[in-house]
């Protein structure tokens, strides 16, 4: 039973045996307590509105938040360390499980980093399919965000609608990759295999019905006076603060900073697409909401353009040192068998050097730092995950507001704990 009383805090104390002063000293780690009069509250790690296992240490004056410090790590998985013991291809499956609301964006970032390290370029068809799936993933992630953050401000029905549409996208995932969530579909040198025939019609169908669904969501929230009261003027962050706190993605654009990696450092052919970057003006929860809603429509536009220009051709590069030979060759060619064996037992070798590849994930700037050392395993993998950095600005947004507003703000910066803790 000793373990039951330990809250993951130093030494495993029994909480009831500590005096208030001792509690303050221990639980206040990271929190600079401003006044002895105030109350300390620990919110989480099991709390329905923290979107996972986030724990917040709050210093409260009555109902008002005076100060707060996030306590994270309840989902620390050791992904970065674990990837060092796997080959480049094996390590791919770990990236899915970081931001599990947008698995393919993580694949995207990691795979582009591997390809940059190897110095290979993928085929045009693979590039376009990647863009389509990347944008679908953005919608997928925003749908979960919309559902759960609306749930936090007590709009239950939006959640049910969002998850209905989410199933459709998950079906597309399953169609291309065979898995509902953890697709691992992007591979070094292209894709796992070509998309099936039903892919294009399924996406066209999605493009047809989805805009009206977005209208539905907006009808529920956009003009809703309760929603306005909960979100307008809440959690404001100025553009300067947002930049200096490293905020990225729709949370940054909600403050009116025009910065999107798809525009400024284009990857995978994003420079050829015509789309707008929605900007907010106020920097509050409502602006961030508007930005994400508009972003979904922009993503639909990108998917449409991509479908129209989807070229024919192979989806993998023709380098047998990186891409395994097709099944049909294995029966005929000894060389193919050797390549196949080498790739699946040892993997390809990447040169010495380090690269940093940025992509725009649904939550912000996702970047992968990769160091190779002439072996088939990465020497160091590091992910700059948007949720982790965005969380740093939570204290700025929440100061002086009520605890109930805090819930709305956490929803609006769209954090995923798997990505924060890695």
């Amino acid at each position, binding site marked *: 039973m000793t373990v039951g009383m330990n809250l993951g805090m130093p030494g495993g104390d029994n909480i009831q045996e500590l005096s208030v002063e001792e509690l303050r000293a221990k639980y206040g780690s990271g929190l600079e307590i401003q006044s002895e009069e105030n109350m300390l509250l620990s919110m989480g790690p099991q709390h329905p509105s923290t979107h996972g296992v986030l724990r917040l240490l709050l210093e409260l004056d009555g109902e008002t938040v005076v100060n707060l410090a996030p306590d994270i790590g309840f989902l620390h998985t050791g992904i970065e360390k674990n990837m060092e013991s796997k080959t480049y291809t094996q390590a791919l499956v770990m990236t899915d499980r970081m931001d599990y609301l947008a698995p393919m964006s993580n694949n995207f970032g990691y795979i582009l980093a591997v390809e940059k390290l190897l110095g290979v370029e993928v085929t045009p068809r693979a590039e376009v399919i990647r863009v389509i799936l990347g944008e679908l993933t953005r919608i997928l992630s925003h749908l979960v965000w919309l559902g759960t953050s609306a749930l936090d401000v007590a709009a239950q029905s939006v959640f049910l609608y969002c998850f209905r549409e989410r199933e459709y996208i998950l079906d597309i995932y399953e169609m291309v990759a065979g898995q509902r969530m953890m697709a691992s579909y992007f591979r070094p040198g292209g894709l796992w295999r070509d998309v099936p025939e039903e892919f294009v019609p399924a996406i066209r169908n999605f493009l047809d019905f989805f805009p009206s669904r977005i209208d539905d969501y907006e009808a529920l929230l956009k003009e809703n006076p309760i929603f306005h009261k909960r979100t307008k003027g809440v959690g404001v962050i100025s553009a300067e603060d947002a930049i200096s706190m*490293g905020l990225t993605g729709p949370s940054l654009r909600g403050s009116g900073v025009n910065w999107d990696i798809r525009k400024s450092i284009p990857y995978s052919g994003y420079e050829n697409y015509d789309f707008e970057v929605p900007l907010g003006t106020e920097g509050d929860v409502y602006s961030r909401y508007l930005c994400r809603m508009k972003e979904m429509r922009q993503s639909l536009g990108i998917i449409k353009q991509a479908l129209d220009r989807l070229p024919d051709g192979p989806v993998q590069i023709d380098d047998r040192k990186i891409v395994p030979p097709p099944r049909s060759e294995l029966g005929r060619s000894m060389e193919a068998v050797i390549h196949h064996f080498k790739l699946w037992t040892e993997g390809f070798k990447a040169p010495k050097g380090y690269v940093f590849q940025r992509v725009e994930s649904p939550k912000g700037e996702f970047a992968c730092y990769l160091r190779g050392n002439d072996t088939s395993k990465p020497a160091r993998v590091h992910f700059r995950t948007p949720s982790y950095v965005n969380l*740093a600005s939570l204290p700025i947004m929440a100061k002086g507001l009520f605890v109930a507003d805090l819930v709305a703000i956490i929803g609006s910066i769209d954090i995923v704990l798997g990505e924060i803790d890695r």
Partner: protein
Amino acid sequence: MSNSDGLFYEKVNDAFPESIIEVVDFRGERTLVVEQAYLKDICLFLRDEEDLVCNFLEDIVADDMLPEFPRFAVNYHIYSIPKNHHIRLRVPVDDPDDGPDSVGTVWPVAYWLEMEVWDLMGITFKGNDKLRRLFLPEDWQGHPLRKDYPLGYEEVQFSFNWQAIDAKKPYAKD
């Protein structure tokens, strides 16, 4: 390669002539390997110089290069939103207890990023007194991302060794 790479080198070299150890170009990314002592001044310079305005710190990445020497390195990925250019500063670190200066006064987000580096790699930053265990429990020993830290692999249960592992597995009771 962004066309400002040359500009970065010139400007930094002019302002701090002895600071740059090496310039690395790899896959279109430029890295300035700089001396630990100059780091904070260079960062301040990058942020405030008119032609550079690097107002955005993207990431701080620590690297363990065992058995090379110096063993550690810290990478700063710095970006300029108005100018749309970026640079990587790389600082070799011999002694993790005597790490580089904190750049938290230049970009406030650095305090938060440095905390991660300290927790997982154990490199301290002078001037950042907020370093604490973030991802791991407070009483954790060691820094897992170092190369000499074991992965902590546990034996996997298959049918041939099922009973042996089952016998020593600590199952929970009610």
